[in-house]
């Protein structure tokens, strides 16, 4: 293995590992076989695991239905959507077929749907979407949002092992941006948030790519004397309220940051939980920061302004800290 491992490498390695260890695993998606996937997440896997990595037609609905059928028979399919945005045409099979199977019949549905998601410069409205909210809202799905190379690896491995349908949101911006020395051998389990940075003045809750921005903002604020704690949710459903609450108990202040649209979603859910159950812990109104309420723009200038920037996170944090 290379000495420098990227987030996308980790995703590839996790799949290789799963294919190696578990004969029930297969991968199905557009261009995942010989081509190795649009982002090369399945590079060489078709060659290494003959008959277990194969190309699908451009039929997202049928791809997911197929996975559910295979799962019923005890297999562990991994479905790659070419972009998260295209999962909207497989939406029905995800939320109404996969997500209801166990509850209706008692038969588990262990499928993993990989969604390359989130914004990149020049991606535009249909190659940039963050869809964790629409999947987390529907009952029956586990929604994961790894923010580090290590988590990309360990959480994908765990996703394949989980007996329920997992929506695995892997951030395209992180693919080649993040690097690690080696792959982890141990990991926090799915369902546990992580304190990405310890601080006593303010809790910033973030997930996926925004964890990096939150950490950078925390660095910036440190130069001003503020010690900011950053909680990486890792999984938005289940959502580890305990870790968030414990952090807020320490800091008394909360900012929640997400890259998706502002109406509803992770930031609303986190704030609503803390407001309901941890009201007494807060000594300032909890705040949230999301992308703007428009499609994700194409031009880099617009794109950069659409999502929360490090500067915007720092500014929002400062406002709370000074309140």
């Amino acid at each position: 293995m290379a000495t420098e491992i990227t987030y996308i490498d980790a995703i590839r390695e996790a799949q290789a590992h799963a294919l190696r260890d578990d004969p029930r695993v297969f991968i199905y998606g557009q261009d995942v076989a010989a081509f190795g996937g649009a982002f090369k997440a399945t590079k060489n896997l078709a060659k290494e695991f003959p008959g277990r990595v194969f190309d699908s037609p451009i039929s997202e609905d049928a791809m997911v239905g197929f996975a559910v059928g295979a799962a019923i028979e005890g297999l562990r399919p991994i479905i790659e959507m070419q972009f998260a945005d295209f999962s909207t045409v497989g939406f029905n099979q995800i939320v109404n077929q996969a997500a209801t199977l166990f509850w209706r019949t008692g038969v588990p549905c262990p499928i993993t749907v990989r969604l390359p998601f989130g914004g990149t410069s020049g991606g535009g409205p249909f190659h940039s979407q963050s869809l964790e909210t629409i999947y987390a809202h529907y009952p029956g799905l586990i929604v994961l949002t790894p923010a580090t190379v290590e988590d990309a690896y360990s959480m994908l491995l765990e996703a394949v092992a989980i007996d329920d349908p997992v929506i695995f949101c892997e951030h395209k911006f992180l693919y080649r941006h993040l690097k690690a020395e080696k792959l982890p051998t141990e990991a926090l389990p799915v369902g546990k948030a992580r304190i990405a940075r310890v601080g006593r003045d303010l809790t910033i809750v973030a997930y996926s790519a925004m964890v990096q921005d939150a950490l950078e903002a925390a660095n910036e604020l440190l130069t001003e004397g503020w010690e900011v704690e950053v909680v990486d949710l890792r999984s938005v459903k289940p959502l580890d309220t305990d870790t968030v609450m414990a952090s807020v108990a320490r800091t008394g202040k909360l900012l929640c940051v997400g890259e998706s649209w502002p109406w509803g979603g992770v930031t609303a859910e986190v704030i609503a939980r803390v407001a309901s159950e941890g009201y007494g812990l807060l000594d300032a109104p909890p705040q949230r920061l999301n992308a703007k309420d428009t499609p994700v723009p194409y031009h880099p200038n617009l794109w950069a302004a659409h999502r929360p920037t490090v500067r915007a996170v720092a500014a929002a944090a400062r406002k709370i800290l000074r309140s």
Partner: protein
Amino acid sequence: MLQAVNEPRVGAAEVVRESHLAAFRFMLRARLLDDKFAALYRTGKIHGGVFLGRGQEALSAALGVSLKKTDVFAPLIRDAAGRLAFGEPILDAVRNYLGSALGPMRGRDGNVHRGRPRDGYLPMISHLGAMISVVNGVLFARRFKNISGMVGAACLGDGATSTGAFHEALNQAAVEKLPLVVVVADNQYAYSTPTDRQFACESLADKGVGYGVASHTVDATDLTACLKIVGGAVAQARAGNGPQLVVAKLLRLCGHGEHDDANYIIPELKNSALGRDCLKVAEEFLLRNKFTDAAQLAVWRSETIREIEEAVAQVQREPAPDPYAENWSAISSEHLNETHLENGH
């Protein structure tokens, strides 16, 4: 279970008789069961819709008897006959309609939404067309596990052929060369919508060539034809000749559901050959060919009615689901359950 009728052999006549009688008995059982559900509906004993297969029994039974227990079956709303033939106990059907806690869906889902996925018997979701790709996945998985000789059947109506899901799944099966049989019951209406508002091809069977899939047409008012054509298609799929599309012509002899008087069905169709009742047609055929006699038919009928009545009586004494005992979780991984969500916060 039926041996494909289009392969005559020693004792072929006897095989034909047996297969007709087997299929007919499932048709009869389905009709009587449906009648009971309709009656229960009228007296307010069933919550939600009741959907009957009246007129579709020959097709559905022919499919059911053509399948083996080790095959895969995804019936739709009008397939009581096929379900019984595939092995579903009457009790399961009654329990599901009445929402018994002991039913296959435990009161969580109802009426025609029932099945036992682990037995290859897939419980439909309502979204039309959505089950076909699930059948594909099951078939693929079995091939992946080196199981061979199986067939997967998915049923749908003329209206459901307009769904994107149907298209994607049939194409997928063709690309993967899966032993899928898609049975389309072209019963002239989708709810109230006549076929000329649903498609513009001459026959839905014309769709086969565009998928690279063999297609077959059958008069679904005629059990003999159904046994031959459906049985043949299943045999083709089983023999490794790829997906098969069967388009059956018939008329829905009831409302869309029991809430619907279907006054939109035009008399011309009712009075046409399509409007024949397949059960009557089959009964006459059996009598005419002396496959059985009227006394035997009467026995079957009364036995089945008793069986159904007993099942209903039993289920009505069974426990309803208890919301306090219910496990209000949609996932199987208990360690990933969120206590926060259990009571809607």
